């Protein structure tokens, strides 16, 4: 298999990755542009970042975004993990078909439909729109992504570990926390990160479900973009990209360390 990595394969990868990365790289580069024009290079400057940090509406929006992201990702991870357990461990229960449909449908559901339907629910039950309605909406769509990520780890899980723990007298609840959770933890953590970035990104569902006073960063950026492209937006986007990139890099380093440690432990165990 390794011998036939043809020139065509390499070329398609180079073009593919250029297509994926060039727009983002250009966006970041032009956030450091001296000129007000986003497309003509006029020298290096960080003045757009300075002006961004003096823009109170951007800072307020950033705080709202982070609060919504942290709360919704955490609740979505708990609910999504439960959902994944229900899907893999209980193959027969009443309404399982409906349950799996409700887990998969939000993954592809157009956001305008999800946003509108959530909003109409909140109006129907008389829930004032604001930060909390937005959090509830974010939990609902991101828990399904968490469920799918955790589920893919659970199906390859060696059930005999759990059986051993229970044979030794552990209750199912203890078994879950002492055996199952540590094994599926990487999937749970990446589920949390996915839920957090989905929440950080969302524009459409947030626009429908938020109320006065709860404006997120994407909503702020969107209303600015409609007025025109400015280096300030580029700077805001660059900060968001940097936050996510740092998070992903830390997670992958931690993952690598854990793998190396595991390999070392296994070697040590084999020697003994």
């Amino acid at each position, binding site marked *: *298999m390794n011998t036939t*990595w043809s020139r065509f*394969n*390499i070329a*398609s*990868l180079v073009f*593919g*990755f250029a297509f*994926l990365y060039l*727009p*983002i790289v*250009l*966006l970041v580069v032009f956030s450091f542009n001296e000129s007000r024009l*986003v*497309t003509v290079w006029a020298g290096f400057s960080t003045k757009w970042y300075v002006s961004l940090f003096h823009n109170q509406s951007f800072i307020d929006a950033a705080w709202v975004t982070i609060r919504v992201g942290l709360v919704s990702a955490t609740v979505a991870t708990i*609910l*999504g993990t*439960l*959902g994944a*357990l*229900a899907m893999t461990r*209980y193959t027969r*229960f009443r309404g399982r078909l409906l*349950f799996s449909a*409700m887990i*998969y*449908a939000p*993954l*592809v*559901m*157009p*956001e*305008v*439909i999800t946003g*509108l*339907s*959530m909003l*109409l*629910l909140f109006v*129907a039950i008389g829930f004032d729109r604001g930060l909390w309605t937005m959090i*509830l909406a974010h*939990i*609902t769509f991101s*828990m399904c992504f968490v469920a799918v990520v955790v*589920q893919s780890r659970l199906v390859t899980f060696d059930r005999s570990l759990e059986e051993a723990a229970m044979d030794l007298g552990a*209750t199912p609840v203890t078994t879950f926390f002492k055996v199952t959770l540590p094994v599926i933890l990487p999937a749970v953590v990446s589920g949390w990160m996915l839920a957090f*970035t989905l929440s*950080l*990104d969302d*524009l*459409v569902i947030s*626009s429908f479900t938020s109320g006065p006073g709860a404006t997120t960063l994407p909503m702020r*950026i*969107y209303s600015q*973009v409609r007025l025109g492209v400015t280096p300030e937006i580029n700077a805001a*986007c660059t900060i*968001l*990209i940097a936050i*996510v990139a740092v998070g992903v890099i830390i997670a*992958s380093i931690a993952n690598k360390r854990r793998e190396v440690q595991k390999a070392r432990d296994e070697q040590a165990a084999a020697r003994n």
Partner: protein
Amino acid sequence: MQNLISSIASRLVIAVPYLWLLIFFLIPFVIVFKISLSEVAMAIPPYTPVFNLSAGWQAFADNFSQFSWDNYIWLLEDPLYYKAYISSVIIAAVSTVLTLIVGYPIAYGMARAPATIRPTLLMLVILPFWTSFLIRVYAWIGILKPEGLLNQFLMWAHVIDTPLNILNTNTAVFIGIVYSYLPFLVLPIYSALEKMDYSLVEAAEDLGCPPILAFWKITFRLSMPGVIAGCFLVFIPAVGEFVIPDLLGGSQTLMIGKTLWNEFFSNRDWPVSSAVAVILLLLLVVPIVLFQRAEARAQESEK
């Protein structure tokens, strides 16, 4: 006692996410359907009749008689709406095919890469997906606009003399959808190709099968589950896409997500936007069910 706790715990594992999704995912659709049968009103909330069980069954039944299919008749009579539906489906279908043409060689190249660098390549495909959708669409505005970077580059290279008008056309929408949804298509195809036994192709070639035919008859056939899942992951959300046609498309770009957004936020006509959503959902029910079945089947085969 122990047994009681564990049986309660196992019930909660199912019940909690189940109830959450019922309340926040399924019931809202019922409400959307109900409001699509209402009439617009100058009130808060801006529709009538308002659903109110506390007024008793009689009032509820009276409300029922006020329901009308007027909004749906309105959608059928105004060509704007069905044109928007048709053009959304066409734009989504064309973009899905384009994404497949761009994405398949990438997935194939990744699957054929040396095993040591495959995790890195995988990471490189996933990484852009972590950056905001809005940001990635926004990045293309600076590239595609008349005085943008693409035109500057092409004029500098003397390929063209006058700037191309790409921004605010359907071409820009295609580019935006292909770009934004590419990872959704590459990943399932890659995971199908990676599991494939390549000696099958070698055997076919040894027996005199031309490489292109071997690719088509073996590699592509075996990657079909990934292709199907990927295409659904692109097509279904693209039909209802709002951000891309709004920022990259022009006034002639008709897409139903944009229509729904405008009905709701500009015209404040909640009943009509609900009716638009109901029809969009009906349009997508078949692909969604097919997608869900394909996913469930893939999940079963993993076990």
